[in-house]
């Protein structure tokens, strides 16, 4: 059908133009608004309107023409009523013009068209197809719009049936793991022409006599399609039975699927002695101690890596699976490997320990047992391994162990240090007890070392690239490459001296001993890269050596931090108790003692801290902090730490790297949180 699309400033204007282009009048066209126009102050938008002849109105016009010219002269009842011009779409029985008493009419009965001519003064009957499901022939001519008919016309009505369609194609995914059927389905329909009319204007309608489902493709056909594409594996046509129920449209159905490969499992190592350890941890008094083993005990078992399962794609090709990685079971002193290196067994009596960060090394350290007190009869006890003391450690004697120390009695005016955990069954009085290294200071310096390493490595890299540049003269470096280093620090790596300065300050402030390896590297850094020192560097190799040392120190510092060790004792008085992990007081609290913990300080039992103080790495929980007797308690809190006290008294002084808080009156439920920058960020206290 002819139609035009018109742009205009208003709808009326668009209709006028469109109708003119079609050679019709405005009331003979229908329209559809594609874009509504808008009138604005600065901008305006045109109307875009699709305009087409209105079939119904056209028929009316034809009728007018025919009737006025041939059959009857215009009469009083000529005018056709305009009924509901807005909803003209559902034209059909009863929608047409009213059937006047003298009008001709047309009806369909049993598929036959029965035409009745009008009486004089009446109007001619008109016949038209309602839609494309029927073809209407009048005297052998197919009509598309309304046609005036009269008795004696040869009218033939032919329902137009649609054919069922089913198209099937095979689609295969790029990874050859899936094949789909792409199905396009369209149901066919058989129509019949029901009885209708009589009406003066009859639109011939049809109704569905039957729906014709397309024949589903046979399994053989689909198999042949798949075969054509080379699909041989993982075919499953179970879903085909549902084809019959598919609605019309396009569908995608999975018909073949490959099996993906299953990657192998990496080898894993189970440290059996650690598992027993975990069970014991439920009892805090046993935490981490004396898990000694006898020679012959199985300490660890390796589950070897598996190969995984090969996969197969829909073309039947094998897909290799990635085998799991092997992880070596590494052992040190006191441990033997059996069964092809998959089982580790203690070779000596002692305590199993696991050391190392990336690669864990299992060893068994011997345990020395002191049956009574450590005193004038035993002298100081230094032991490479762990020590069990069944009595006390007394008056000025020292105990040192590279493993754990367990003391069943008390430590009185003595000094105990262990690289491992320390457990004192009774009291610590006027003594120093330390477990693990100085993790607090190392935690602070670790990020600085990491940054320094990055900068030095960067400087060396840039130096090497520069030396190769044709426009960069290296003549001045003959007297020493220090000039180049100095220039690079000056221009690009100014962070290096700044980081060294911060490290210097950190170690200066810390009253603790630092590891000799760390000390050595700090000396090197100051001698080579601080102040005007770089100018004195002869060869860049010096810096490579420094970098290598720095990397080793990093590893060491890291393992010190990871290696958290605890001190547990019943009671601390006039003592200094330090642990890289937790300090746990189980019985009668801390009196005039200094407790330092890289992690948590837990005061259980009669939970009090009177006098002395604490340095809190992560957290401290206590019931009574300070006392009515006004004893001074100095608490130092590291960034990110928390303090919880149920009752707090005046003269408790809390300090952080960047903040201070003094408790001036008694209170309950004190909570203090320190943020990452060392600022006290939240305090709650009930008066």
């Amino acid at each position: 059908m002819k139609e035009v699309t018109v742009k205009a400033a208003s709808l009326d204007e668009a209709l006028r133009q469109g109708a003119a282009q079609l050679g019709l009048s405005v009331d003979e066209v229908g329209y559809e608004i594609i874009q509504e126009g808008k009138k604005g102050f600065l901008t305006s938008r045109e109307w875009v309107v699709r305009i087409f002849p209105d079939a119904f109105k056209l028929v009316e016009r034809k009728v007018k023409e025919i009737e006025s010219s041939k059959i009857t002269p215009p009469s009083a009842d000529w005018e056709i009523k305009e009924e509901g011009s807005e909803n003209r779409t559902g034209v059909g029985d009863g929608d047409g013009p009213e059937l006047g008493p003298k009008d001709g009419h047309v009806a369909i009965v049993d598929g036959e068209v029965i035409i009745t001519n009008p009486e004089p003064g009446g109007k001619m009957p008109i016949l038209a197809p309602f839609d494309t499901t029927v073809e209407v022939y009048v005297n052998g001519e197919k009509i598309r719009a309304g046609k005036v008919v009269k008795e004696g016309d040869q009218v033939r009505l032919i329902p137009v049936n649609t054919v069922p369609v089913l198209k099937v194609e095979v689609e295969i995914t790029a990874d050859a793991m899936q094949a789909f059927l792409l199905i396009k389905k369209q149901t066919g329909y058989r129509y019949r022409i029901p009885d209708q009319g009589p009406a003066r204007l009859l639109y011939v309608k049809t109704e569905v006599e039957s729906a014709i489902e397309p024949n589903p493709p046979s399994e053989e056909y689909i198999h042949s399609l798949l075969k054509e594409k080379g699909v041989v594996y993982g075919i499953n046509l179970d879903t085909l039975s549902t084809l019959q129920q598919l609605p019309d449209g396009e569908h995608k159905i999975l018909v073949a699927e490959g099996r993906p490969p299953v990657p192998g499992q990496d080898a894993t190592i189970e440290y059996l002695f650690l598992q027993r350890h975990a069970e014991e941890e439920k009892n805090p008094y046993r935490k981490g101690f004396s898990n000694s083993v006898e020679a012959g005990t199985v300490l660890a078992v390796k589950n070897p890596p598996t190969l995984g399962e090969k996969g197969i794609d829909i073309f039947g090709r094998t897909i290799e699976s990635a085998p799991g990685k092997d992880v070596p079971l590494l052992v040190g002193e006191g441990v033997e490997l059996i069964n092809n290196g998959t089982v580790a067994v203690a070779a000596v009596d002692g305590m199993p320990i696991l050391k190392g960060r990336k690669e864990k090394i299992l060893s068994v350290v011997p345990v020395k047992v002191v049956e009574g007190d450590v005193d004038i009869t035993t002298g100081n006890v230094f032991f490479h391994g762990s020590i069990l003391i069944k009595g006390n450690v007394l008056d000025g004697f020292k105990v040192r162990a590279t493993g754990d120390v367990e003391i069943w009695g008390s430590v009185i005016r003595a000094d105990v240090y262990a690289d491992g955990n320390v457990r004192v069954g009774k009291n610590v009085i006027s003594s120093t007890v330390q477990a693990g290294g100085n993790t607090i200071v190392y935690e602070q310096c670790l990020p600085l070392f990491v940054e320094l390493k990055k900068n030095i490595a960067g400087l060396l890299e840039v130096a090497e690239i520069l030396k190769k540049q044709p426009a960069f003269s290296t003549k001045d470096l003959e007297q020493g490459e220090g000039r180049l280093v100095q220039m690079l620090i000056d221009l690009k790596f100014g962070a290096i001296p700044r980081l060294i300065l911060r490290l210097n300050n950190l170690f200066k402030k810390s009253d603790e001993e630092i590891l000799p390896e760390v000390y050595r590297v700090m000396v090197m850094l100051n001698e080579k890269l601080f102040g005007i020192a770089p100018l004195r560097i002869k060869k860049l190799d010096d810096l490579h050596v420094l970098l290598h040392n720095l990397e080793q120190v990093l590893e060491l510092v890291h393992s010190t931090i990871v290696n958290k060790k605890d001190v547990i004792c019943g009671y601390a008085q006039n003592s200094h108790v330090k642990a890289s992990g937790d300090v746990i007081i189980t019985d009668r609290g801390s009196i005039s003692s200094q407790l330092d913990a890289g992690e948590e300080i837990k005061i259980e039992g009669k939970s009090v801290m009177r006098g002395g103080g604490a340095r809190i790495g992560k957290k401290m929980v206590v019931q009574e902090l300070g006392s009515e007797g006004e004893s001074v308690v100095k608490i130092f809190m590291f960034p990110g730490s928390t303090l919880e006290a149920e009752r707090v008294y005046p003269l408790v002084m809390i300090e952080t790297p960047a903040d201070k808080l003094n408790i001036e009156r008694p209170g309950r439920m004190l909570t203090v949180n320190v943020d990452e920058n060392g600022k006290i960020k939240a305090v709650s206290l009930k008066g």
Partner: protein
Amino acid sequence: MLEMKVNRDENTLTVVMKGVLDISTVDDFKKTVLGLQNQQEFQETKNLVFDFSRLKFIDSTGMGALATVIRKIGDRKCIQVKNIPPDIYEVFEILGVMEIFDNCNFEPMSKEASNS
């Protein structure tokens, strides 16, 4: 050897450099450029341009001297280093000079000029 010529054009003082900027010439370079500060021309102009078109190479001492000069004068003058030969420009890029002195303008020599 380093020859330096100072030209004035309205608001701009241009130092044309010919030769090498290395340990043997840095003292001259510093003396000449820092010496400009006391001259009337320096007070009267806004821009200071170094023309590197005839500079052959630079070394770490020269690089350090250039940095010193820029740091000393850069906050009072709009400094531009122009016609930087490709080889030297590459050195500048490796050192990240453009990022470090982002208040100055570094312009590589145009392609045609560098070919001729």
